[in-house]
């Protein structure tokens, strides 16, 4: 038996083109006669647009046209919000492609300039004179929901776009009233800037003769983009072709359909020539969605023996100036439903209030709602431990759901698919040497050094998801995927998928699934994605769903083909189908191993169709729609060790241990890569990333000079481990792993830092934990009553 391709860490086939700069992104595509679009953007967070004078701009060399929302008129419908969460009194204020009368965040589009050259377009955009009447602005979501806040949309009273409640308030109150201990904290989930390496770009080409529109754009879900572009332009969906060429990362920020994509489409339809727009990094920070932005008031109830009884939270979730495509679903469905985490805790309550602000619209950012839930849970578990004087590891051990193989229903109504949380937990603790660490911490303290450890146990829901659930929670789409496995006469495979990977390595992973199922060498399999005309329908790449959902579709399509091949092979070898055995890409007759047909032989014969069994169609191709019966629930334990320099407040991340269980790993190198990237992004939220606005709504962290992207030298080598618990409902047992790192790492590092600072009396610091904030917190806590140190507690 040869080495299995499933489970082998082969190199990512995407990398040569990406690393050598040969990949072709939207901006690399050049069309003759293209016009460049520059957008005049509001410099104010909230302002009435009194007048727009574009005469000077229009007169400039190379300028073809300047358009405002008046020129567009009803040529473009407003951009839709596509996650209409039920029972929440949801308001969906109009989101015009260009501001109508009023700008609602810095960067809101006010006019567009079309010119023959990108520089000239920018010169002309600078020459458009807009007279604004500035209005008071509000950025903080809790403030925006309060009395006297400026009203952002006339039809969204009190700026409250929705109020979503999960759980029974009275039942929750009863649990809290009767509990031995209740801990609470106000947690700030700061705004994050997704910062994909490639900024967004869009180019539209409308053919007036055929009335067909082709839109190349940076999309994680070209089929959803086609759907929305068709809706806003009024073109039939079969006349719209959306192509996502190479896409340089998204992290959620390339799910939404933005004004810019609609504007190039409309302008190309209007002028009959191709129109292109490529975002600058400055624009990217201002107008591409931001992530997180919660103000959370959280409480947890527990018994004195460490039994966790319940969690409840009021969440103010900042939506920004408009409701982005999936925005309402993030701080609600994808957030509250995770409040139980991996614990046997049966009281949950969440009230999530979506608030319009004058910030950039927010939407899904890696983890999308689940990091914000995991953080609050893990933070509160540590607070409970501290309050009752128990080791936080003991509290977790005591409350973890015991191992289960097929279904475990929790208080949020989710049915976790499979899990062995204690196994991953104990493995991580072993790897970290947890017991020894507390002694080290004590001896370091004696030298005036502050070490801390943070431990997170998590599970999360991904592989989104059954379509029936999507419908029930108001998602305006299905959540299945489809795929076609097409084999050419010479035995080479094209796998066409509706999902749209953009850096994850899915071309490699998915080829491995097909190779495993069907026996073609992995290098003979191409995975094709991103073009709505070439590929079958799919809902896109997000929510760690491509391997679980598309992978399942491919596995099942491959199985259908294999069954066809077996029957055909039997026919060709004049043997009974039941006697046909398969191994390593070859079919043979039981008992006479020298008689064999390779899968390539069979594929050729299926194409030639000279000698088919009765009733079998020619060709060698199968398609499969796959709607998952449930989410998949990866899980694990992460541990961080930090040292805080009390003189400066600097934090050194000394060790990072991650034990994740995503079921059987198709490609362990790619899994490790996903965890590395995720951990880095999550740690960055804890330590350095955070968008900051001035009181009047200017983004002060408008470039990487001020917005702190994580850098390689901030990190030790990660220590990765795994356990393997297959998903019972998935054809190959796999779970998603694209977001686990981000979900687990933020609370892990945060809790480690707060553990280190405990002897100094510091109990809470808003993220990110910059040196200046840590140092100030140490100064402020000086002389205050010191909380018990966990290291000492252990030694008591």
């Amino acid at each position, binding site marked *: 038996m040869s080495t299995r391709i499933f489970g082998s860490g082969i190199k990512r086939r995407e990398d040569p083109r990406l690393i050598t700069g040969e990949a072709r992104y939207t901006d690399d595509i050049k069309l003759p006669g293209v016009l460049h679009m*520059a957008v005049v953007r509001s410099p104010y967070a909230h302002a009435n647009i009194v007048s727009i004078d574009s005469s000077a701009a229009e007169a400039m060399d190379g300028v073809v046209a300047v358009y405002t929302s008046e020129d567009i008129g009803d040529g473009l419908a407003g951009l839709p919000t596509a996650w209409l969460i039920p029972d929440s009194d949801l308001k969906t204020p109009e989101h015009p492609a260009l501001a109508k009368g009023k700008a609602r965040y810095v960067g809101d589009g006010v006019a567009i300039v079309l010119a023959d050259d*990108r*520089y000239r377009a*920018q*010169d002309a955009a*600078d020459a458009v004179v807009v007279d604004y009447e500035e209005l008071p602005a509000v950025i903080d979501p809790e403030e925006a929901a309060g009395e006297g806040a400026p009203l952002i949309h006339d039809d969204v009273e009190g700026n409250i776009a929705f109020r979503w409640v999960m759980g029974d308030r009275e039942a929750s109150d009863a649990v809290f009233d009767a509990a031995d201990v209740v801990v609470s904290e106000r947690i700030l989930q700061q705004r994050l800037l997704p910062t994909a390496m490639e900024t967004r770009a869009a180019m539209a080409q409308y053919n007036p003769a055929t009335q067909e529109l082709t839109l190349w754009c940076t999309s994680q879900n070209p089929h959803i983009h086609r759907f929305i572009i068709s809706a806003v332009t009024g073109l039939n969906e079969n006349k719209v072709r959306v192509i996502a060429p190479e896409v340089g990362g998204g992290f959620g920020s390339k799910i939404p359909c933005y004004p810019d994509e609609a504007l190039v489409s409309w302008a190309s339809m209007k002028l009959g020539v191709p129109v292109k727009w490529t975002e*600058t*990094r*400055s624009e990217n920070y201002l107008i591409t969605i931001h992530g997180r932005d919660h103000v959370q008031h959280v409480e947890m109830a527990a018994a004195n023996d460490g039994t966790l009884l319940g969690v409840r939270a009021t969440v103010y979730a900042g939506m920004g100036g408009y409701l982005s495509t999936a925005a309402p679903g993030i701080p609600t469905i994808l957030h509250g439903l995770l409040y139980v985490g991996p614990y046997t805790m049966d009281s949950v309550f969440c009230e999530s209030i979506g608030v319009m602000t004058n910030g950039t619209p927010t939407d899904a950012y890696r983890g999308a709602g689940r990091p914000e839930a995991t953080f609050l849970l893990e933070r509160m578990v540590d607070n409970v431990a501290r309050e009752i004087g128990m080791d936080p590891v003991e509290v977790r051990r005591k409350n973890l759901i015991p191992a289960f193989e097929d279904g475990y229903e929790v208080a949020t109504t989710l049915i976790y698919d499979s899990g062995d949380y204690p196994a991953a937990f104990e493995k991580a603790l072993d790897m970290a040497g947890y017991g020894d660490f507390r002694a080290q911490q004590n001896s370091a303290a004696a030298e005036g050094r502050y070490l801390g450890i943070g431990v997170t146990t998590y599970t999360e829901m991904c592989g989104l998801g059954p379509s029936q659930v999507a419908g029930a929670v108001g998602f305006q789409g299905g959540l299945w995927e489809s795929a076609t496995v097409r084999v050419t006469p010479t035995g080479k495979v094209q796998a066409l998928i509706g999902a749209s990977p953009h850096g994850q390595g899915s071309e490699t992973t998915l080829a491995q699934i097909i190779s495993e199922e069907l026996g073609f060498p992995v290098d003979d399999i191409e995975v094709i994605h991103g073009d709505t005309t070439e590929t079958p329908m799919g809902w896109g790449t997000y929510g760690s769903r491509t391997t679980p959902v598309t992978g399942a579709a491919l596995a099942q399509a491959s199985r259908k083909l294999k069954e066809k091949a077996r029957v055909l092979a039997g026919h060709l070898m004049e043997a009974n189908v039941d006697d046909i055995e398969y191994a390593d890409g070859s079919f043979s007759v039981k008992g006479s191993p020298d008689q064999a047909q390779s899968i390539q032989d069979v594929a050729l014969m299926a194409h030639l169709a000279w000698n088919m069994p009765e009733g079998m169609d020619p060709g060698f191709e199968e398609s499969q729609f796959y709607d998952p019966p449930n989410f998949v629930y990866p899980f694990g334990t992460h541990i961080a060790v930090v040292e805080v320099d009390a*003189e*400066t407040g600097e934090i050194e991340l000394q060790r990072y241990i991650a034990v994740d269980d995503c079921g059987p790993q198709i490609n362990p190198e790619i899994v490790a890569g996903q965890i590395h990237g995720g951990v880095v992004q999550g740690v960055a939220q804890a*330590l*350095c990333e955070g968008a*900051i606005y001035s009181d009047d709504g200017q983004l*002060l*962290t408008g470039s*990487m*000079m*001020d*917005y*702190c*992207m994580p*850098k390689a030298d*901030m990190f030790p080598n990660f220590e990765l481990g795994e356990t393997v618990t297959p998903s019972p409902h998935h054809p190959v047992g796999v779970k998603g792993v694209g977001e686990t790192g981000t979900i687990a790492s933020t609370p892990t590092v945060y809790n480690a830092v707060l553990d280190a600072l405990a002897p100094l009396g510091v109990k809470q610091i808003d993220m990110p934990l*910059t*040196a*200046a904030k840590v*140092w*100030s917190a140490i100064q402020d806590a000086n002389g205050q009553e010191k909380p018990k140190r966990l290291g000492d507690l252990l030694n008591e």
Partner: protein
Amino acid sequence: MWPNKFDYLRAGSVDEALASISDDGKFLAGGHSLLPVMKLRLDAPEQLVDIGGIDSLSGISANGDLSIGATTTHAEIAASADVQTMCAGLASACGQVGDQAVRNFGTIGGNIAHADPASDPPTVLVACGATINIQGADGSRSVGAEDFFVDLFETALDDGELITSVSLPNCSDCRCAYVKFPHPASRYAIVGVAVCLKMDDGTCAQADVAVGGATVKAVKCAGAEAALAGTTVDDAAVNAAAEAVKSDIADWLAGDIAYPESYRQQMAGVFLKRAIAAAQS
């Protein structure tokens, strides 16, 4: 991303550069400060005179004093054995500028002409009493580093004047160090401290101290120097200097949203201690 229109001229000599620079023109050296601001349209010179090809502006000579041509790159300075011996703090500061790509392009002349308060080399130049050599259409002049840096992005350079070189006294008998607390976002200095100690038989005969990053310009710190001079640089002296330096920079403080002035002022004391320790090691 999309700078305004400009003319470009590559000068072959200092004379040609000085003769061709127009009123709205700027010299272009490594371009690593100028081009970013042009791309953001925060500056829009109508003409760039590229001085990168003028041989006489580049290179390091060590005849008595140390002389460094204006277009010498940070990487060249950091790697120079002469600079390492004659002003170890400058070699260290230039080695801590940005990353390797930035050090390969950015020049000392461009760095000091730009006068970013969070730059590294100016702090050492001020501490070590460097001289900035300048040439204009009407001739040449020299300005001490302390006078050269006037304020935030403001120097003693007049329009159309070119920095030709920087000279530094030979400090091979000093203990000299530059220690930097890099901003986690930009890696420019939150605070940078340069220390040069002349030790005579265990006693500090002369102490030179300057602070940058925390201040609108590199500031020479007389109070800290006085606290160190004449001592054995023992703990008491170091602590006194760390206190004094906070007053030395009090009138010049700078900060940003993440690292406010008050924090940087405190950190100047912490990093002075670290710089003294580094100088002595």
